[in-house]
């Protein structure tokens, strides 16, 4: 794996896990909204 590919991989993985974190945050607040 060269440097460019590694940087691309780092960016991709970071974006995916950030999206998961945001989805859990928003998702659980939405559960609260729907149930209250």
């Amino acid at each position: 794996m060269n440097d460019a590919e590694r940087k691309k991989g780092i960016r991709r993985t970071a974006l995916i896990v950030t999206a998961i974190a945001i989805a859990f945050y928003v998702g659980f607040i939405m559960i609260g909204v729907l149930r209250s």
Partner: protein
Amino acid sequence: MSTTVADLHEHHEDHGPAKGIGRWLFATNHKDIGTMYLIFSLTMFFIGGAMAMVIRSELAIPGLQFVHPEFFNSMTTMHALIMVFGAVMPAFVGLANWMIPLMIGAPDMALPRMNNWSFWILPVAFGILLSTLFMPGGAPAGGWTMYPPLILQTGDAFPFLIFSVHLMGISSIMGAINVIVTIINMRAPDMSLLKMPMFVWTWLITAYLLIAVMPVLAGAVTMLLTDQFFGTSFFLAAGGGDPVMFQHIFWFFGHPEVYIMILPAFGVVSEIIPTFSRKPLFGHDSMVYAASSIAFLSFIVWAHHMFTVGMPLTGQMFFMFATMLIAVPTGVKIFNWVATMWRGAMTFETPMLFSLAFVFLFTIGGFSGLMLAAAPADIQYHDTYFVVAHFHYVLVPGSVFAIMAGAYYWLPKWTGHMYNETLGKLHFWASTIFVNLTFFPMHFLGLAGMPRRIPDYSTQFADFNTVASIGAIGFGLSQLIFVWVILSAWKGSKATDRVWEGSHGLEWTVPSPAPYHTFETPPKARIANEAFD
């Protein structure tokens, strides 16, 4: 082999760290950030420990001695928040920062600037939390679980509590992103996932747990904030909300949080036991699957914290059996550690002593956990000192002992000097004796019916409480030995690169102390492979 890799670092010796305070404020080096995390964690350990001393002094004999009941409640709340988010979690992040790049042959963490932010958010978060001690109405006193409606009665401290919890969450999430990205993208050539050391594996799983549950805690406290200040009624029954929903959401975070604090401990112990048994870890792959199973199961057991709240019988049955199922992968781990030691050429240096105590005493905490998992029995044990005994056995001789073991194990690699083994053993024996003196009697207190979170109690509980308080003060004082061992480590004999006779892995192929920059050229596949054989 070590010479070969050490040679790679020689031409980088002129690239030293920045001078002065800037080295730490703007740190992007994983070793510097790891060191800061570990020092921060030790500081918080003593602040949280001082609060434990207040609690145990008050409970040493029946009656109100030293503090008002409201302040006592603040102490239990703050002690828990500081120990969980300020001491145990940052300690493991510190170990991760120091060791993961060294173990996988990476030059640094993948996102070093974010790493700096992850750390520096923490002193701000805990500065805010600790400042609430001086606010009108005092520090939060509704318990670390922050259940509404009680927590909404907190005085001026409430928004500061919420803000500090958010900051802690952001710090943890950024740290977890960094760990995942580093492990996925920056491993040495030919280091397949299943060849990774167990500490790296357990941290990868822990990081995924953090990504999934820290935002849930953030969501829960955001809703508390809007209930208090923006007129919503997520958890307020008067407005059509449901306070029990908070408990469900909180424990959806809270139970995986327990494994966030114990899985890296499993990783540390899985590194140490093979080294001092001079054998490879028994069942490496099964350890990976067991850790993954524990992580998965941790998401489907949360309501065992809520059996007394009331739920359908089928719900009780599901959460009871799912919880008991966790004993299976945990048993696999205990079996594998014992099998690793079986017929090994064992020696008992301080890291091994702490690891052995971990295996034995964590198992006691696991067994009392199984007792609490049984729904009918839990209705008796709930909110008693039996629960306090259980989770302290898991967290103190569990997580904290593993952190101590890891600190002793890797200290020569960090400092380049051997610590004083006699003092290390003194620290171990004092800690082990006093930790049992503190927490074992709490099982009896709980079974006899003493409730938790009370500043005074009936006289029939007096004797065991006095014993627990003597043990707690002894345990607290014993930790001063640890500080002395660390401070005096720089005067010890020079450590070799490999440090321990039985150690394996890439981290032992770099010089001691580890140079400021390591693995700028990825280690050759052959070297990486040999390090694991």
